[in-house]
């Protein structure tokens, strides 16, 4: 059953986001006049003729006496009795609920029974016997029935109606088709919040396609060293934004921010926070052992031209990340030195064997005792050892207590 076009386009997504549902349904109502040809569901006015016998599948009662069955069938069951019979698997007929009021009573009764099976059966009947306009109007005020109806439509494959159409993009394998699909989603009446995310998602995939095509070509042509040295392991398509940024910092560092693939452009386009940007960039540059780039990430100049190292993240974490990427001690100790908390600094320095940092810190603290202890830990005759010796002997003449 192809679903009416107006629901594919305009009706989206009235049913899941209930706060928006009313607005959406109104839009359906206004559009219902310009009915489309695809709607092949028989339309019957609620006050009009009965829809003929809606054949009931009552095989589970074949053992019953046929006469009894007929009596059951023609008896004038109330909505409550009918629902009860449906639950018990007995014969029932929905056709005698002809007026809208009766149908709604039946629906409400079914909802009260909390039996999804029965609710769905009643909905199928209403779908057949009511115009969509009326059915939707009534469903809007009956949240539970509405959800069942959506579920039913989903189950029988009227996917197009599905409010969560966005979700369907997961089924589209081809990246170009997927991009186009997302582009279509942009026109849906999302909440402002979600709209931003969908827009970002679309932009991201659009750019990934461009970057992927370009890099694939560059890599296979063998023009760029970076791809020769570090061949790409996987395509960047459909990766999250942070992964894309990492990729960009890895392969496209230093590009001018006019290119789609440059880190600066990605950062700006997707409003990436300073912390996330720094962490991702640091990870990528450290992986390449580009220590100069790492240094530049933290260096700021004031108006007098003095440089200072700053970071939106504690330097102890920077040290951890660098160490994880096998940074040499010379690099590590620069950052260990920047850790403000002394205890934390010493503990990190000990962990990563930054002797100079430890020795200097104890020297500055004038902690002779700790220096003597530490001398016992380093190799005799090594440069560290000599350094400690020197400090200890100097200090005797100076101010050590």
């Amino acid at each position, binding site marked *: 059953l192809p679903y009416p076009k107006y629901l594919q386009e305009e009706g989206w997504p009235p049913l899941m986001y209930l706060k928006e549902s009313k607005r959406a349904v109104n839009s359906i109502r206004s559009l219902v006049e310009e009915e489309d040809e695809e709607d092949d569901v028989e339309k019957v006015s609620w006050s009009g003729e009965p829809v003929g016998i809606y054949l009931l*599948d009552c*095989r*589970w009662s074949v053992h019953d006496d046929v006469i009894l069955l007929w009596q059951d069938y023609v008896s004038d069951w109330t909505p409550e009795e009918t629902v*009860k019979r449906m639950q018990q*698997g007995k014969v029932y007929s929905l056709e005698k609920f002809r007026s809208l009021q009766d149908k709604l009573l039946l629906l409400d009764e079914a909802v009260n*029974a*909390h*039996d*999804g*099976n029965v609710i*769905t*059966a009643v909905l199928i009947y209403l779908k057949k016997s009511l115009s969509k306009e009326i059915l939707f109007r009534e469903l809007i005020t009956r*949240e*539970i029935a509405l*959800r*069942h109806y959506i*579920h*039913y439509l989903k*189950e*029988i494959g009227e996917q197009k109606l599905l409010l*969560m159409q*966005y*979700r369907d*993009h*997961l089924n589209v394998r081809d990246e170009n088709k997927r991009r186009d699909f997302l582009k279509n989603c942009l026109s849906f009446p999302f909440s402002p*919040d*979600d709209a931003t*995310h*969908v827009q*970002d*998602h679309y932009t*991201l995939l659009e750019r990934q396609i461009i970057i992927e095509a370009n890099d694939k070509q560059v890599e296979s042509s063998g023009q760029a060293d970076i791809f020769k040295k570090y061949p790409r392991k996987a395509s960047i398509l*459909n*990766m*999250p*934004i*942070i992964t894309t940024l990492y990729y960009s910092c890895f392969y496209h560092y230093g590009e001018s921010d006019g290119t789609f693939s440059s880190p600066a452009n990605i950062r700006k386009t*997707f*409003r*990436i*926070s300073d*912390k*996330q940007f720094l*962490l991702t960039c640091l990870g990528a540059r450290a992986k390449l052992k580009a220590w100069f780039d790492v240094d530049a990430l933290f260096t700021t100049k004031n108006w007098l031209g003095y440089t200072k190292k700053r970071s939106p993240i504690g330097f*102890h*974490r920077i040290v*951890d*990340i660098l160490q*994880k990427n096998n940074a040499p001690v010379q690099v590590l100790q620069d950052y260990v030195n920047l850790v403000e908390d002394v205890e*934390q600094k010493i*503990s*990190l320095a000990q*962990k990563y064997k930054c002797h100079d940092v430890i020795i200097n810190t104890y020297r500055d603290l004038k902690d002779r005792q700790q220096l003597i202890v530490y001398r016992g830990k380093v190799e005799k005759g090594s440069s560290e050892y000599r350094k400690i010796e020197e400090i200890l002997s100097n200090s005797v003449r100076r101010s050590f207590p």
Partner: protein
Amino acid sequence: MSAHLSNGRVNLNILREAARKELREFLDKCAGSKAIVWDEYLTGPFGLIAQYSLLKEHEVEKMFTLKGGRLPAADVKNIIFFVRPRLELMDIIAENVISEDKMHSPRDFHILFVPRRSMLCEQRLKEQGVLGSFINIDEYILDLIPYDGDLLSMESEGAFRECYLESDQTSLYHTAKGLMTLQALYGTIPQIFGKGECARHVANMMLRMKREFAGSQTQILPVFDSLLLLDRNIDLLTPLATQLTYEGLIDEVYGITNGYAKLPPEKFAAQKKQGEVGKDLPTEPKKMQLNSAEELYAEIRDKNFNAIGAALSKKAKIISAAFEERHNAKTVGEIKQFVSQLPHMQAARSSLANHTSIAELIKDITSEKNSLYSFSFHVQLTTLHSSSLPSVLISSEAFFDNLTVEQEFMTGVDTDKVNTYIEDSIAQKDPLIKILRLVCMQSVCNNGLKQKILDYYKREILQTYGYEHMLTLNNLEKTGLLKPQTSTRNNYPTIRKTLKLWMEDANEQNPNDISYVYSGYAPLSIRLTQVLARPGWRSIEEVLKMLPGPHFEERQQLPAGLHKKRQQGENRTTLVFFLGGVTYAEVAALRFLSQMEDGGTEYIIATTKLINGTSWIKSLMDRPEAP
């Protein structure tokens, strides 16, 4: 295989027997030899009801897993499909039936829908043109499955999602049906208490069903004194917290499915074949059934993990002492006596070895290491148990840090700020479920997050894990697990203080309060249960009003002569039903209350599904396995 079901206060074996009887009757309806084609999902729950031997006694000769294409050859008269009522399964069945070679071997087809038949499904079979091929179409109402001596589960994974996200309350109907069956077997439950929207629905349906069956009153002396129905959404906090009981931790780390856990095999390898050194390590996970049929497990499962070491070593001493007895056996009679106990002792020894191994595995993961500043990397254990849930908490530092943050949230520390641990975890790309668990917990403990903070978390998550997770975040918002703060007033502290949800110095070794199950946090749901028993809910009206949904009390008339006369000092029996899932730690807390000397109430526990934070959040995710 089922003796452990009859050891409790209420003999749940009766329920299991009733379920088996119905199964036998159905099997006998399809006369002659048969093959069962299984919807794989059902094999777990059915395993709790009937072993293969029962099926075999009723001429089941072959079993297959349901899949497309042609059915495997089997020289049987009947093919029976055991399936859930799902449309996609109907299509597979239709494919099976259509590709059957009719000339060669005419076989009869039957379908058994579990737990109910569905018009939609039959309609689908009709559309596919195969409905007429089935001789029997039946339903097998597997509502409440006895899980252990004091525990019933519907094993319905989707119940919470259906009720609170999709507003599909069919599972509540099944619940009410299940409770009616229970009352048919164990007598009318005179008092019904409840809290929450779903609880109210279930109670209403029960009362209505009772009116409808008014003629067929059961003449059984009531076994249960009261029923307490609790909505999961009145206590969203508890499942988010990491369970710290032994059983709870096994579930958190490895996942327990239908009573079985799949464990990494390495630690279990050595004890079997000591002679064969250098043999390849087993690669298949070790599958272990966990229930009170195992004496040792029944003893230790509800203890706090910190008390497990002591318990195991005490047990080890007892067992080796028993083995040492052989030296004292001098006479033929004494030796005979010793030998007769040998099988039991050996079973105890192997049980001890198994649990020591499991405890070691868990200890490796949970014990704190002295690397406070080190980054921890999550090693995905998924390869070890590929089919079960991926573990969220893997490395020990992560476990400890994670726990610290949880406890900060539960005690109300800095719940209104962006949490750096969560931020760091996102930056490290820790498993998404772990992040969601923590963010939801912060939201719940702060009665919603400030819009700015919520937006920040959402953006970080979407940027790091992919925009498609927008759907999942939406779902979490719809169920109230994640929400923007609407009023400035945060009532969580009031609830915490009134119900004493946080206990300093929880005693993990010799607990005196239920808070030991989370090392300090007393599960809200269980506090409500405890207060109801004594002094009653009237004392906490204010708090009850802060939790969602109505609270109520109903009475059911008993037929004359069935009023129970309680003996002096006899405990009351209460059935607590968790709609939307319960954790093992909550179960442990209720067992603790049952065992309290002056408690006065014993509890039987029922639920739609045993859950933990990970499986719960996962059930709310949209396409967690999306490409």
